[in-house]
């Protein structure tokens, strides 16, 4: 082995690692929560109604899934920087800025996957809800319930995109740690870039393993929910 895997606590001790995990979760969960509240009504609207330009809107949503995260970070930083239009709020290099950029990155994923889930609900099921005396709201609720597995998958996919993303939060968050070793805007991913650059591979590996467990856990949860959905259908 060209480096020893003896695990030394990093400079700030284990509080450093724990605070990084907490910042990661706080930023990504908030971004995904807000994005879900924003994306779901739009997915329902686009899935429900026919309007001119619907195909273009759908294409834009799908294209958004491929946004390069560094470009998103750059644009968000420009908006939030002192000279930018939102500069008065003084939010550059804060967790809020990271939430904003992860929101932008997670939204196309959540919107696109939940849109296809909503669209896969048969017209005949909507008709049945209407014909049984349902209002438009009742029909909407039925569609959400029918698409529930797809919507949960969408949220988990959005979380996967957010938690493992590094480019934009590095730019807008600044990867800041307080002098006492507590993370301010340093997350699992951005911490790994620092640890790798400084040659502290052990800490980097621990952080990487934690990130992997989180991402794998979310993926496992997603496929378990999907298989549960299939199981209900078949028996």
């Amino acid at each position, binding site marked *: 082995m060209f480096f020893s895997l003896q695990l030394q606590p990093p400079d700030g001790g284990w509080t450093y690692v724990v605070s990084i995990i907490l910042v990661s979760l706080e930023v990504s969960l908030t971004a995904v929560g807000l994005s879900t509240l924003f994306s779901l009504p739009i997915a329902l609207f686009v899935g429900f109604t026919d309007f001119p330009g619907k195909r273009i809107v759908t294409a834009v949503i799908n294209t958004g899934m491929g946004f390069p995260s560094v470009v998103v970070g750059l644009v968000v930083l420009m908006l939030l920087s002192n000279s930018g239009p939102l500069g008065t709020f003084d939010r550059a290099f804060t967790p809020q800025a990271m939430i904003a950029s992860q929101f932008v990155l997670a939204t196309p994923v959540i919107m696109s996957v939940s849109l296809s889930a909503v669209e896969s609900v048969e017209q005949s099921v909507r008709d049945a809800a209407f014909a*049984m005396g349902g209002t438009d709201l009742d029909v909407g609720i039925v569609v959400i319930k029918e698409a529930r597995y797809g919507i949960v998958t969408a949220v988990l996919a959005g979380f996967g995109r957010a938690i493992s993303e590094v480019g934009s939060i590095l730019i807008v968050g600044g990867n800041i740690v307080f002098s006492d070793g507590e993370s301010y805007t340093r997350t699992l991913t951005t911490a790994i870039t620092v640890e790798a650059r400084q040659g502290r591979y052990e800490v980097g590996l621990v952080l990487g393993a934690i990130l992997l467990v989180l991402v794998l856990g979310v993926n496992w949860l997603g496929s378990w929910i999907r298989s549960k959905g299939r199981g209900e259908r078949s028996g």
Partner: protein
Amino acid sequence: MTLTTDGVSLGYGDEAVLDDVSIGVDSGEVLTVVGPSGTGKTTLLRLLSMFRRPDAGTVAWHDTDVWGLSDEERLAVRRQISMVFQEPSLFNAPVARNVLYGQRVRQSWSERVQRRVRDAVGDRSMTETAHTALETVGLLDKRDRNALSLSGGEAQRVAFARALAVDPEIMLLDEPSSNLDPRNTAVLEEAILRAKARGVGVVVATHDMNQAERISDRIAFVYDGSVVESGPPERIFDDPRDRRTNRFVAGDLLYEVDDESALPTSASESS
């Protein structure tokens, strides 16, 4: 008459689907709308359940034009009518929840939340109407099964129970047994007659003349978007006045052709 159409016409784009159709159904009777596939039977039933407004003519509930009512009043009328589709169109939920759906949407939000809480603590009670509806189609033992795991015949019977469980004045059934085997068809027809005996008015769209003969009090024969003939089944079967009705009753396929010699004859079919 409870539910009537008066001279309704409807088209999709340039294509006219219904042209000047007037029919009506009363409580406690079965009206069968028969005719070949693609002649507008489904569209007519969808007009009766107020999916769409007709381009011309009126749909009336107890002589009141439903499209002259406010949204709320029309919703109240819609809730006196229920519908069964050609496909069962059940929700991905247990059979009991499917059957209770119509009652649930008629409840206030606080009642719905209370119901949710009771469900969560394991209270599996059904209302008497829902219980009776499921019993009528003989599927009480399947109440906890997921509706999507049922066979086609069972699913269609659940769809019928769901429509019956709201205690409707009028039920609209669109080709309810076109995908069913004879046993399920028999159960469904029995259920239709039991609903009728309870005072429900039933409109059944079908292309099955034998079924029409078994269950109808009146038959309306629809061809190419118009009602060409209507009357009691004995008259339609024994003394059809329209040439097209006559041929349909006799079991001929109806084609949109002017030259009748182009139609296959029974001799050439059997050879």
